[in-house]
């Protein structure tokens, strides 16, 4: 197997796993929000909007960063920060959401604010990965279209699996807090892998 093939596979695997964790955590987000803001279409709208804002910010920031420095180590570091943030969520989520409910209420402002605190930072940092992966794989302009389609396609397959497996298998079997820890650990592992394999992922022989 060629070096480029392995490197591509590794980056796409990371895209798959991070895509899984990202949507998996969105589904878990509903479990955190329901007790305070109800389980209606309002909660879902706020959740989905927040995730989309995080993706947008992540893509913009990722694109700007990777053009400045093509550093897998930097991307990995951001993923570690995202994972650590996820880890802390079970510690503060209940008192904070209780406070938001009394201070702001359960209207759009309250739910969006709660969803933002819950998801925006970690999901933004996780989606920084996508433009990094595209740039790292982009060896020639003539493959550009396919590189972009593979990265987005594979990460979307991860999203789909994360949504379905989390909802139909994980949430009915494990607690939301434990699952949050697992997604946090997976995100940190992906980040550390990128830090450790920095030179390899740049395309230099390790």
């Amino acid at each position, binding site marked *: 197997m060629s070096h*480029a093939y392995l490197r591509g*596979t590794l980056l796409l695997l990371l895209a798959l796993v991070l895509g899984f964790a990202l949507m998996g955590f969105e589904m878990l987000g509903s479990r955190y929000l329901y*007790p305070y803001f109800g389980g209606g279409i309002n909660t879902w709208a706020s959740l989905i909007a927040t995730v989309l804002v995080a993706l947008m910010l992540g893509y913009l920031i990722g694109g700007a960063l990777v053009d400045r420095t093509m550093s897998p180590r930097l991307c990995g570091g951001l993923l570690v920060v995202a994972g650590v943030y996820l880890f802390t969520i079970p510690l503060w989520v209940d008192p904070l959401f209780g406070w938001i*409910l009394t201070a702001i209420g359960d209207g759009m402002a309250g739910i969006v604010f709660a969803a933002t605190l819950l998801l925006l930072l970690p999901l933004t940092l996780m989606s920084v990965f996508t433009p990094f992966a595209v740039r790292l794989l982009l060896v020639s302009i003539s493959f550009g279209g396919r590189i972009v389609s593979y990265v987005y396609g594979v990460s979307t397959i991860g999203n789909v699996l994360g949504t379905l497996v989390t909802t139909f298998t994980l949430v009915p079997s494990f*607690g939301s807090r434990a699952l949050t820890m697992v997604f946090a650990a997976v995100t940190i592992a992906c980040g550390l892998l990128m830090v450790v394999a920095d030179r390899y992922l740049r395309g230099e022989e390790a």
Partner: protein
Amino acid sequence: MRIPRAKFFAVALVAAVGGLSSSFGGLQAIRASAQEAGLLEKRESLYNNIFIFGDRDQVTMTFGQNKRYYTESSMKLSDPGGLTVDYTRYMTLGVAYPEKVERIAEIGLGGGRTVSYLSQTLPDAGILAIELDKDVVDLAKKYFKFRETARLRTVVSDGRAYLLKDPEKWDVILIDAYRGPFVPFHLLTKEFYTLVKSRLNPGGVVVQNIEPSTMLFDSATTTLKSVFPSVDLYDGGGNVVAIGYDAMPVSQTELMARAARATERWKPRYDFRQMVAERRVLAKPTGKILTDDFAPVETLRAIEKNNEKWKEQTEAPR
């Protein structure tokens, strides 16, 4: 780097077709139901597909889901004050438990028959119905003769969010919040019942309507029992009504005496004493306690069980 392209597109295609066909199925269900005889009104609200059926003497509110209709409320036009759905009579028994009943809250209005009955029966009590769906309130007024008064008010809110925001206390909290076939998970957890307990005056009770045909029943009663030391269960003709309170079980003699006093005072149409005679006390909770962290309600609901099986977990009151 290469990905098997055919496989990639096949997966994407299957996902897309799956999504389309499932939403198409939903549309068909709604269209078919509109042709049912006796449909007075169909309303797609923010939360539910509400169908009002009626004939010459009866009007029924149902929520449609999975091509089935789940009855939320029913009323006889010739006898609007009666409680036609059996379990709702047992819901009213909650007011016989406390020493005083000045404030009653209900989560889940439906057609508003239970609170209307209580408002007429207890002329001094203030009642608040907390209903998530504004359209349910509108339809209760339109078809079920539900009228708000100074003593009977409604607020449109999620039940748990309302209790969290509002520190007022109640003598009786009724919980009848079904969305079609199920109760949202956040109204079944230990944290929720702990909140309910904190919103009860001393001697207050929580009354909940629970459907007994799945494993979710066992978990719901077990969770209730983990917060309220005493849980009484009443067979409400299909549904089970659970009454929880924060004290050791009241003796049957004492509860019967309270029921007699309440009957004498309010002269309710449905005699509390007859209901107390059917009391069962939850003694052996066998379910798993549900928490905000882990409440696999969908899984538990998928495991069906004998409707009468719950009685094995109870004993006769002493």
